[in-house]
């Protein structure tokens, strides 16, 4: 069971909380100016990170206030709790992807994205 620290009430059992999904999704200032694809991106597309995920929680059976947390989606370990409106803490991303093997195709330029971490929070 998860032990979740509400920034207002302190550590409580998981069963007191509801998870609100990915945090820091900013509502576009002028929705009418967006293309359908940009609007769909805001509404539906998610990072779905394997590793450190910044997400919203609500203390639904307690103070009923929303807050943010950083949690590893593989180990479920919480790395930070912080209030709404506060900046996300600087947490180094974790990568669970294997290293690529050296067999490369000489005809192709190496993929620049390959050696940077692609799973952590951006």
């Amino acid at each position: 069971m998860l032990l979740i620290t509400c920034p207002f009430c302190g550590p409580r059992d998981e069963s007191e909380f509801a998870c609100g999904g990915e945090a820091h999704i900013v509502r576009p200032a002028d929705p009418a100016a967006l293309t359908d694809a940009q609007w769909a991106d805001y509404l539906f597309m998610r990072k779905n990170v394997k590793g450190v995920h910044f997400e919203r929680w609500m203390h639904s059976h307690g103070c009923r206030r929303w807050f943010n947390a950083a949690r590893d989606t593989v180990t479920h370990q919480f790395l930070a709790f912080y209030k709404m409106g506060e900046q996300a803490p600087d947490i180094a991303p974790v990568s669970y992807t294997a290293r690529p093997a050296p067999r490369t195709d000489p005809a192709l330029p190496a993929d620049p994205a390959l050696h940077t971490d692609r799973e952590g929070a951006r």
Partner: protein
Amino acid sequence: MRRYSIWSLARNARGHHEGWTEAWRSPEPKPEYDVVIIGGGGHGLATAYYLAAEHGIRNVAVVERGWLGGGNVARNTAIIRSNYLHDDSAFLYDKSLQLWRDLSGELNFNTMFSPRGLINLAHDKSGLVELARRVAALRLNGIRVSMIAPEEIARRIPALDCSTRAANPVLGGSWQEKAGIARHDAVAWGYARAADSRGVDIVQNCEVVGIRREGGRIAGVDTARGFIRARTVAIVAAGHSGVVAAMAGIRLPIASHTMQAYVSEPLKPFAHTVVMSPALVSLNQSDKGEIVIGMGTEEYNSYSQQGSLTHIEYVTQKMLELYPSFSRIRMLRKWGGIVDVSADASPVIGKTPVEGLYLNVGWGTGGFKAIPGSGWTFAHTLARGEPHPLVAPFGLERFHSGRMIGEHGASGSLERYK
């Protein structure tokens, strides 16, 4: 492929069963393929099989991060049905149900498909109305389902608490006679063996770690065992679809959650049909006699393949409310799988902005039943470069146009998409 038959069984029995050969090869990946399929689950293997069997495309690799059958294909509760609300879903799932019927013969592998019928319960008025609406829609689409009365439900499932004092009163239900279950790992093995025998390379322990593009076109995949060039690449990675799509800069309307199942000690046959309830996702009795309980998804994103104890407690409570006599049954095992739940609880199938890169993902909590139909239509999609008509409505573009295919009710995905 050495065919399995009564004769091969007898021959091998004479040799004390020491003469069986491996069902598929474990080849080194070649430097280049026509098609590379990322993910060796049910959908990836079925796609490879139909590419070879129906379209003559045999220079195909299925690249699997772990071992064959280590994903959801062998972690599900194996329920097969086609009672989905919308036309698009009903036709696709029903195509799949038709393919299930002859699958064991086609693959020469016993998938133990057992069409034992399925009851969906309603515990409140709105649930009953919802079921009636779904039944009406299905009948218009020519799919045989009907409503059944509480008395008939009580007769068919004696263990279910149908009394007036029940915590989840049984107000009625729907019935699909042709629904059932199958042996899930046999499906993975059967497709793998049949694909392998037609020349498909199944490469296990080979994680895809990057997707390379040349211009706007696919070039191939970087893997833990080196770069593999390909003209067509398909992402069929279920729970990890978002991780893999991100390698090509594609964002998906999908969140990965853990879904759990658990099984009891073996009991005498008593549950002759599959039972689904909004309170407890599903119950069926395996051929070994175990009660198999499907539990729905956890609330938060997860890649752990381990469900929480909180959820087990909740589901156990629901199970005992519905089936009070189970209180003395011992539950033996439980496990979790990572399901890729999409915003409208329907799969995402089709092209991507990268030419030659395709998606078949987002099957979420209900993709086992769809394996034959998905593989059959997706192979067509890859071979022709155009979506098969049955899957054309399921493209990523529907999230832009707003033409969603909401199947939260029929799929049993109770969690909200966040």
